[in-house]
């Protein structure tokens, strides 16, 4: 399992991103509460989607002027979810 997590902060921005990704790219995106491991300590919202179309995702975000915070890859390692930031 491997997912792309895009952290958005506001739930409104997260939903906007989810809609645009599903509409434009059929990317099976879903809003989630940002996992604690990558949140800055409190609550925020992110979008979980497929990692293989990162450049399309970035293009959609740029076209639609959606500002997000960071990108992470979520993987299952020995039954635990592990996150690594993309630069």
């Amino acid at each position, binding site marked *: 399992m491997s997912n792309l997590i895009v952290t958005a*902060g*506001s*739930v*409104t*921005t997260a*939903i*906007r991103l989810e*809609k645009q990704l599903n509409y434009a790219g059929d990317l099976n995106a879903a*809003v*989630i*509460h940002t996992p604690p491991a990558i*949140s*800055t*300590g*409190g*609550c*925020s*919202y992110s979008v979980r989607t497929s990692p293989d179309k990162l450049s399309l995702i970035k293009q959609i975000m740029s076209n639609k*002027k959606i*500002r997000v915070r960071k990108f992470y890859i979520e993987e299952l390692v020995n039954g635990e979810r592990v996150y690594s930031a993309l630069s």
Partner: protein
Amino acid sequence: MLYLDNAATSLKKPPGVYLSMMKNTIANSANSGRGGHFYSLRATKKIYETTESICKLFNIDSIERIAYTQNATYALNMAILGTLDKNSHVIITQMEHNSVLRPVNKTCRYSVIKADRHGRIRPADILNLIRPDTKMIISTHASNVCGTIMPISKISEIAHKNGLLFMVDAAQTAGCLPIDVEKDGIDLMAFSGHKGLMTPMGVGGLYVGDNVSINPVITGGTGSMSESLVQPDFLPDMLQSGTLNAPAIIAAKESADLILKETPEAIGAKEHELAVRLINNLMNIDNVIIYGVGNDKDRNGTVAFNIRGMDSVMCAQILNDEYKICTRGGWHCAYPAHCALGSEKTGAVRASFGYFNTSHDADKLTDAIYRISKHYKHKKNGV
């Protein structure tokens, strides 16, 4: 009862609003933007859909730029207190409602663009009022007293040529006049849901343009950045603390979509037609005074009038008690507007048409006014 107080609130809502309100009170009363569970996200997505419709209505390109409030008053206070302070100067029109006048009066220095007897302002007059410390111009889109429509595009042009922000109070016009934040050059806009947008009570909002820097007045829980003692700096969270009225906001999509389908132009034209019909009728009654622009184009569906010499509150009371017609007498939270119109001593009777009114309603009010005025004249003359 015949309801003619749509400038205060639209009494009737489209049937879809009632159904949605009930359905979503049951299905979507979880706390939107709090947590990541199914019900919370479902309510949030429904709210988002309403915001999409509202953005379409006002040609707003970024959904984050609308923050929900419970009414226009809160939105206006958020904007005024969040952008101005005691060192700033603002220009307002004489036709403003107390929800602009009072927060401006308590927050900053201000000058007033005078209105004439018809409630019209001359945009060129603004130039004389601009000072080095002027930051913003605020105008209502239409007078809540007499329905005069303000030339907002022209005001915006002057504001932007002089490096000022332009805020519109669209309480009277959202849903029943076309509004395009881009074309009309609007930087901030407050709107009510419960009037022309025909939403349930408890829905309003503030649009904040991307050139506006605003400080939050109300701070608290936003469901984001909970670890921080500082309010989030991103919209809408920055301006949207506390639990939203989810079922009412969700139900607002029903009326917003209906308005989009019928268009605000068409709804406004119908309300204008009803106002003109009433005015033309009232002009045939010799002791009735009509305020505002008469049957000209720059008016909406709100008409202010008096029976000469008769107290406006008393007239509205008689209309209610004896003719079963709901109007509003008095000063309508806008005393300076009455000073411009010449009704500062008496106030005025205000009849305001909405989406559900018909020409029959205008005629019924005319008939009642005719009878009251005859009776009053006779009584005064001791007949």
